[in-house]
């Protein structure tokens, strides 16, 4: 049974004006097979949490821990965390000129497994996963994210998640910018991955729309670098109806 435990996480970032604290004590536990939604106003630190878990060098852990199955992740290089089973579907996926999607996927799979995947099975897996996500086969030959539309980039992130089979995935606003059909396609992909591999998910979103397709077990409200409230799926609906005012006045941000 896999578990991702975040405890008392404090994170800062270096800016031109000096160091600023963004995360101010985050506690969160995700068990395998669970779906956790994180909602919260712009700038509350959701992406910071996602990047910090993945190990982005810009974010400094000041205090606290991130444990995957009891192993400390803070301090590990980015690629080692990925190999330990963490995956981040990014809010803004990066273009990599001259690197074809197929080459990228194969290189990643090889790095994660420690050996190259058997060619025939792998080619078939890639083709099928692309088909399920309604991605044209021509994407395989295109350069990573280069010239992809916003929605295409997001599908490409989910494609990677399905093929790379992490233990835990963080989806940072994967639903933003998707039309209704694409949203459903992406949600199907997430549910497929969960059924197949039983991964745990942290779904960062501003909208309950996606949560109708990806049913969360828990909802966390993120405000000013901390979890301000937690609850079941009903909390998401309440947030949609009421907004974050209640929390913002309580913590007097502004």
């Amino acid at each position: 049974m896999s578990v991702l435990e975040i405890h008392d996480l404090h994170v800062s970032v270096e800016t031109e004006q000096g160091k600023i604290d963004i995360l101010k004590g985050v506690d969160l536990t995700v068990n395998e097979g669970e779906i956790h939604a994180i909602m919260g106003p712009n700038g509350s630190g959701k992406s910071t949490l996602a990047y910090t878990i993945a190990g982005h060098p810009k974010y400094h852990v000041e205090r606290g821990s991130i444990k995957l199955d009891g192993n400390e992740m803070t301090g590990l290089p980015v690629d080692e965390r990925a190999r330990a089973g963490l995956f981040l579907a990014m809010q803004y996926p990066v273009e990599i000129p001259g690197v074809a999607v197929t080459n990228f996927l194969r290189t990643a799979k090889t790095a994660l497994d420690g050996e190259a995947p058997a060619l025939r099975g792998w080619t078939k897996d890639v083709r099928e996963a692309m088909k399920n996500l309604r991605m044209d086969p021509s994407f395989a030959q295109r350069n990573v994210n280069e010239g992809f539309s916003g929605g295409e980039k997001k599908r490409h992130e989910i494609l990677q998640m399905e093929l790379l089979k992490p233990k835990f995935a963080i989806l940072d606003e994967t639903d933003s910018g998707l039309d209704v059909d694409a949203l459903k396609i992406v949600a199907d992909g997430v549910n497929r991955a969960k059924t197949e591999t039983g991964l745990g998910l942290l779904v960062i979103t501003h909208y309950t729309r996606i949560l109708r397709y990806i049913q969360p077990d828990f909802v966390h409200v993120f405000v000013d670098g901390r979890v301000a409230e937690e609850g079941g799926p009903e909390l998401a609906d309440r947030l949609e109806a009421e907004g974050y005012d209640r929390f913002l006045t309580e913590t007097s941000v502004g």
Partner: protein
Amino acid sequence: MSAPASPLTTDEGAHQQAQLDPTQPGRAPRSDGGSSYVPVQTRSERFKSTTTSDFPAVTGREIEWKFSPIAKLRPLIEGELDGGAWHYDTVATPGVSIAWVDRADASVGSAGVPEDRASANAWTSFERALAITIDGDEIQDLALERSRLDGAPRAAHTIITAKKHSRGHIVLHNSGAAQLAENVEIVVEDGADLTVVSVQQWNDDAIHLASHFARVGRDAKLRHVVVSLDGDVIRINPSVHLVSEGADVELYGAYFATSGQHIEQQVFVDHNAPKTKSRVTYKGALQGRGAHTVWIGDVLIRQSAAGTDSYEQNRNLLLSDGARADSIPNLEIETGDIAGAGHASASGRFDDEQLFYLQARGISEEEARRLVVRGFLAEIVQRIGSPELQTRLESAIELALVPEGAPS
């Protein structure tokens, strides 16, 4: 539309020098701005001669030498050069003839005249020229391997001619020892379509100074690709004269300089007829202390070149501290009637976000760097038009990425 009455020169101050500053981690200097403003001499007025002694002694301050490591080049600039025939390996191709021709042959000098002293020295010294002639409208492929020069200072002269409406693909592959000054003339006759690829994978102590002169005829097309990877000093200066209406050139360059290597290219495109087109794309990667690259891109659009379309760009990727990339685009426009003229030049350090993205998928930092650099240069390497050579060069680029002293 009002045409400017006098020659218009843009971007005299565009010289970019990029160097990673170890005292400011994470900052990517893009340009030193206009601090090195040098008025550009009109390229058409530059001195030319085929005779060494017509050129004054080189001081190293000349516009064409000021970036080059002159001390290492003295033997080629002013020394005596062996001008005898050299050995090459090739496989005979029916539509391509290869022959040694006399200095007095009519084809000698048909594409250009030296504009620097080393080029003139090579011209003065060569005994016979190697003439490669392509005929026939089926595409003719030829690869010429030059791997057995002995490393003593020498001159060479090569003339590549694509006859009217012929189509050819010529690869000049250089390896082994060399101290070589040479001229390569490229004549693309009316309606012909020619690709010339020059690959430098010399020994680590090799010195190679080359001038390529091309003359592109009516509705003819030249694709010129330079890939420079190994050698101590490599300086390849292609100048292309678009002399008839509809002439079209694409110039590509890929280079990778590691510690102590100097790789330079001075590109000149001379638009001298209406409706001519040029595209120049050079990309370089640099790694290690003392790696130095120079790209100068001169484009001249003469009064006679109405309706010209031109674009040139140079991009450099600095992979470590202590490397330096000079990048200088120059655009001279003498006519008001152009279809397009532009340039771009950018030198920057490795993009950490790309690295993060790849590493977040489990790929090690070293492998991620390899992918990114290979991808960066792929745009050029894919233009070579020979899958086998392309694969060979891709592995060579990966090899260059392995840091010195690391087990390979």
